[in-house]
């Protein structure tokens, strides 16, 4: 509780928290949606926002509000899968490379660095085209996670490298602590802020990349995400035709989501920073 109270002192955290609560609520509302999001022409087309259709309807004959709830949910699912899976890879690779060192380190870092220098976007586009038939939320999430770990693994490795040289590592070994327990007990607390902030950053990266792929039409366009909504809106020239409610909905939602995720990552990692944490323990 005290943690939350401390965090709410930061306006960035408060803002992000409120926005995310709103977005998650929206995602949850999708379960009560009266319409199937994949069906067209369930409502009249191109209606302005009104009491019946809060955010209006689009040219496919779908209700934008309920469509948006599905879109937010799906985008969150993709980014969570991408973020969490790539975190697991990053932690494993970073810790093994950092703690074991030697050839293991060299091989793992070679793979990671290769991922960092190749033109990532082109590769993802190519792979997305290859698996297009089987493209769904999970596949897309996994695909993104395969490319999102390299930089963070390097960060975690560097933290572990410096921790390994600290004397408490030796104290733990001399206390008979095994390697796995040592890494979990001694090193994890130091890498937590890093893992947290990179998770959130990675999530917004995944949302952004999903939108890019969707705009290029490389994902299943029948399944609403923030990206596919945008794709359809642009496809039907909604700006030219003055259907602002259609295009603004995904744009504003994604904007708020990016800002909220960014501020959340900044304020949480500031809070979890071991240096300030040590000060708090002392105070």
């Amino acid at each position, binding site marked *: 509780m005290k943690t939350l109270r401390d965090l709410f002192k930061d306006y960035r955290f408060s803002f992000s928290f409120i926005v995310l609560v709103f977005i998650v609520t929206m995602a949850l509302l999708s379960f009560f949606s009266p319409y199937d999001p994949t069906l067209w022409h369930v409502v009249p087309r191109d209606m302005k926002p009104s009491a019946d259709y809060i955010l209006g309807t689009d040219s496919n004959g779908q209700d934008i509000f309920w469509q948006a709830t599905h879109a937010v949910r799906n985008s969150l699912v993709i980014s969570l899968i991408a973020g969490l899976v790539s975190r697991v890879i990053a932690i494993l690779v970073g810790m093994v490379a950092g703690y074991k060192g030697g050839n293991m380190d060299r091989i793992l870092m070679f793979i990671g660095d290769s991922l960092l220098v190749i033109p990532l976007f082109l590769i993802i586009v190519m792979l997305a085209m290859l698996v297009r038939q089987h493209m769904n939320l999970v596949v897309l999430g996994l695909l993104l996670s395969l490319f999102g770990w390299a930089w963070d693994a390097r960060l975690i490795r560097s933290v572990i490298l410096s921790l390994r040289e600290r*004397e*408490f590592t*030796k*104290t733990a070994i*001399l*206390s*008979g*602590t095994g390697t796995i327990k040592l890494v979990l007990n001694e090193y994890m*607390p130091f890498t937590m802020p890093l893992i947290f902030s990179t998770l959130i950053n990675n999530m917004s990266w995944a949302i952004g990349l999903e939108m890019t792929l969707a705009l290029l039409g490389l994902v299943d366009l029948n399944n609403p995400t923030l990206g596919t909504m945008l794709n359809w809106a642009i496809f039907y020239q909604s700006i030219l035709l003055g259907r602002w409610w259609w295009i603004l909905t995904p744009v504003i939602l994604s904007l708020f989501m990016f800002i909220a995720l960014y501020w959340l990552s900044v304020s949480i990692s500031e809070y979890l920073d071991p240096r300030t944490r040590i000060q708090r*323990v002392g105070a």
Partner: protein
Amino acid sequence: MDKLLEVNELTKRYSQGNVIARIILTAVDNVSFYIKPAEIFTLAGESGCGKTTTAKVVLGFEEATSGTLLHNGKPQTRKEKVWVTEGVQAIFQDPFSTFNPLRTVDSYFHETVQNFRLAHSKRDTIDRIDRALRLVGLTYPEFAGKYPNEFSGGQLQRISIARALLTNPKLIIADEPVSMVDASLRMSIVNLFKQLRDELGVSILYITHDLATAYYVSDRIAIMFRGNIIEMGTVEQVLMNPRHPYSKLLRDSIPQADPLKRWTTTVTLAELEQEEYLRQGCKFAGRCPDVMDICKGTVPTDIAIDDVLVKCHLYSDKQKI
């Protein structure tokens, strides 16, 4: 003779640089010594002399390039690390980084007891921890649940010793244990070593650059220079009557806490340290006041005079071993 730990012809090399330009540095070069039960043995020397590397190899944190380690007469390799932690424990230089700042200090004690199955009940555990703490002048209630930053450096160093004592080790390796402890508290740590030796029969490998405390506390001493042990014997013999020119220089360079014993002579310093490592023959030849032609080409052998081993050509007409 009864030997608790025997180190034979230990060599440790590091390679620096990449495949094309590789420098091989010999940090520890053919070092042999032994430690008897209930004895404080000092490895002394300046930074970069190889004393800390020797300790790391003995503790199994580093693998030796060549050489053997015998513990109670049995050969040890790095794979069988068990002996290291139960029979041999260690304390480190910086008391503030000995314990993880994000964990309570007592968690290390509980972990040690648990990992080595030293106690069967919670009560037993606390009893055991309390006993170890009392040996260093602390009690369980005054340290339970506290973080490292709530103690002073001297206290932490004593806590660190107490943790090492939990497993009833026969040998404690202390790497510069007092160099970061305040002067007024330094003697409490050093006195503790004496007490552990006399009352519990614990041997201590005391690694230090501080010859004054080494003289005060230890029984035997080995002086290292650029990877070699250049003189080894009892502290009385080595420090009160140093034979190797480097031991003499080192002994004379300790600032004595006595204004009547100020230095009257001047010293010359090595300009390039790396050059000394790579030097053929005796590594001290570049600054030795008694340098001879032979020193620059041939590595001196160990020569025994009055139970003291000296690695110096000055004494080569004496009996060789």
